[in-house]
């Protein structure tokens, strides 16, 4: 079926309850396209979704999926992938899910470099809980829990990933679905942890980080007149990721020598199939205790 798979095959029949205009629609469409374009099939795909408006994506897509507890999507996805190297694993969640309650896992998932893709719908707000500041909210962003702004600098997810040894670090904008899909596709194809931070505006609770704002300010690494972006160039990636004046769209960094965790640990077997009794040489295990 793979050859004929199109993006609608990854769409479930559950109607999204996202607010009309929510960035997550575009984000999801791009993910579905990318999965179809890479020749994946819903039967061999596993989506792990976080908790948040963003986390509802697991319900709206058609595949094997788990919608787990807030912040723990990455460990679940890692477990699925290590046990089932034959399955395409994609993890998706929000900025709160990934960079606040799940921040510890993010750093370690990046380091582990398991061959999966991670798409974060970064709306710089807690959408589902109705508008509190998130770890990527601006310092002066006024919300119910930050009437005068959070007064703490926002996390720079790309820098965090770079510092943790990320091998594929990208940023997209949900409204530029074509480009977003293309980059998610590269994340899927990457040998290792493909990380994509997607600006996915919340039209209900964030009136600062809006479509207009991103449309007007995002610079595509490929359309920058001054420099030819080379994703393999760590220094150039660092410069752009830490650029105080601009935010970029595109693959900022990709390590061409990335070795995924499964390869460095000699994994490759489908762990779901086991014999009907103890392994044949299991008595050797007993003998070790002589």
């Amino acid at each position, binding site marked *: 079926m793979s050859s004929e798979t199109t993006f609608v095959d990854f769409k*479930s*029949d559950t109607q999204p*309850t996202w607010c009309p205009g929510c960035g997550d629609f575009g984000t999801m469409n791009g993910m579905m396209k990318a999965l179809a374009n890479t020749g994946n099939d*819903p*039967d*061999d*795909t*596993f*989506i*792990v979704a976080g908790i*948040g408006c963003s*986390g509802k994506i*697991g*319900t709206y897509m*058609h595949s*094997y*999926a*788990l*919608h*787990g*507890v*807030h*912040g*723990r999507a990455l*460990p*679940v*996805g*890692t*477990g*699925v*992938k*290590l*046990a*089932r190297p*034959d*399955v395409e694993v994609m993890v998706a969640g929000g900025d709160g899910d990934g960079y606040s309650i799940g921040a*510890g*896992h993010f*750093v*370690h998932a990046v380091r582990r470099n398991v061959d999966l893709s991670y798409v974060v719908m970064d709306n710089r707000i807690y959408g*589902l809980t109705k508008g509190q500041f998130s770890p990527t909210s601006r310092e002066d962003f006024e919300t119910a829990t930050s009437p005068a702004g959070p007064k703490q600098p926002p996390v720079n997810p790309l820098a965090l990933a770079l510092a943790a040894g990320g091998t594929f670090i990208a940023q997209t904008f949900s409204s530029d679905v074509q480009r977003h899909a293309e980059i998610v596709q590269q994340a899927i194809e990457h040998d290792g942890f493909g990380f994509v931070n997607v600006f996915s505006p919340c039209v209900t609770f964030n009136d600062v980080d809006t479509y207009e704002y991103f449309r007007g300010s995002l610079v595509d690494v490929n359309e920058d007149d001054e420099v030819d972006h080379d994703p393999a160039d760590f220094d150039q990636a660092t410069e752009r990721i830490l650029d105080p004046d601009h935010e970029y769209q595109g693959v900022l960094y990709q390590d061409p020598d990335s070795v995924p965790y499964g390869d460095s640990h*000699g994994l490759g*077997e*489908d*762990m*779901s*199939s*086991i*014999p*009907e*009794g*103890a*392994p044949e040489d*299991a*008595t050797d*295990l*007993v*003998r070790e*205790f*002589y």
Partner: protein
Amino acid sequence: MPEDLNWAIGGEAGDGIASTGKIFAQALSRAGRHVFTSKEFASRIRGGYTAYKIRTDVERVQSVVDRLDVLIALTQRTVDENVDELHPGSVVIYDGERSWEAEVPGDVVGVDVPLKHLAEQAGGAIMRNVVALGAAAAIADFPLDCLDEALRKRFGDKGEQIVDGNREAARLGAEHVREAYPDLNGRTAEYGHEYRLERTDADYVLLNGDEAVGMGALAAGCRFYAGYPITPATDVMEYLKGRIERYGGTVVQAEDELSAVNLALGAARGGARAMTATSGPGIDLMAETFGLVATSETPLVIADVMRSGPSTGMPTKQEQGDLDMLLYGGHGEVPRFVLAPTTVGECFHKTVEAFNLAERYQTPVYLVADLSLAVTERTYEPGEFDMGAVEIERGKIVDDDEVGEWLDGQGRFRPHADTEDGVSPRALPGTVGGTHMSTGLEHDELGRRTEDTDVRVRQVDKRDRKVDTAREREDWSPREFGDVDAETLVVSWGSNEGAVLEAMNLLEERGVDVRFVSVPYLFPRADLSEHVEAAERTVVVECNATGQFADVLEHDVLQRVERINKYTGVRFEADELAEEIAARVDGEHEPDTVGGSGEVQAE
């Protein structure tokens, strides 16, 4: 004169106490003697002191006792710490040259061995403890070749020279005792003690509870282990690392227990037999995900090797304090199985069982061990671990052809199908036509979020029904010992079994008969009402302060109250409640679950 010999080596942390003790235990086991070891010593003075104690007999030994026959004291403090356990005729081996001369109580026989000096003679001061082992062997008439074998096992991978050096060290220790104390036996005999470690033809294996859990996991087809190091559970991970790979599996050291349990959950969703092991502090963290495991109906084995709590408590001390947490922990009501192996050997069997239960019922299983099982090395006939008898039952996994039987009208797979026995079909990723989402949100048969009161109630009932089914289908019998007609019933759970059994022997000598029920299944568990009723008194033995299992038992034998329950997600309404109570008054017992639907969606 007792047949068993109680031996210990003690010193400061870093003196290589545990590995030396293990060598001696191994040697005894190779000599066909039963061994029961312990490391949990409550220091009476301050931290830093460690000891390894061995009880050995030609008969089975299954507990520690409060008596020391031969003590290797690497420090004066070792003597001081053990003064109460020494008796007239005990032998203390010490090194008079090591800046102190042991002050041993008057009727204890001191044996001064220049450990360091002789070790240097054999090739290096580092072999000092092995000199002491040789000395101990000579004192108890234990053949040195048994010790040689154990030394080879311990040092074999370091080269022949090291093995030979250690053998020589042991020989020098033994020789010194024979030469300097030719009449040692005569002296201990004055106190009625003659130490002889006879060998037998028996062939035993020697292992601890954590190793038995790990071996059980491998036997049961576990392919994925994720864990975060914590005493006393780490040995499970260290055992599996290097072995699970032989079968195509892996061990992942997670960044914390939140991750560990979710990693294992992910692997289990992928279809692997997966487990994690931790101790109390980690169980607290894993509680976050426990409900998800149950509502997503994921088979998962979570081992809790208990230690002293609460909080960081006494990390290297024994306690059975987590029972309430394991039975009731996790918000909401979570169906589960709770198994507590009662011996080192049972750690193996219950682990295999845990994996089968988890998959048969797609429910989390808590496997509860404790520090005293984890650190106890115990001998068994190898046949105890009969790999041929291991059966693996994977439950209702459906393949490409069977998926069709479980689709709804629109061709969608029903992973939470409301079946008679409560168990739904399970389609692993890759199964054609089996796609579905699982979630910690309440869901319908398809796995889609719902707040529909009827569906909610059906799914809760379905999950609970799995436990009811298991209650009927599986054997939850406790282990029974002693005299059925005895006036006194002793009940215990988990690792106390051996100590209770040996206590029963001592009581018998005093003419006290007891009936003993050792409970390995904590949930579901056997109904002990009849046992309790038949006895004059029931005594519950457990390593905790409040008697958590005693509470459970009291609960179980109470007269039943009638219940009104509502779990639709809607509060009680007065008129509804009046109806329900009236129905109880009239003797009608049908549970009712009326209620509206929730409108607000939040997670």
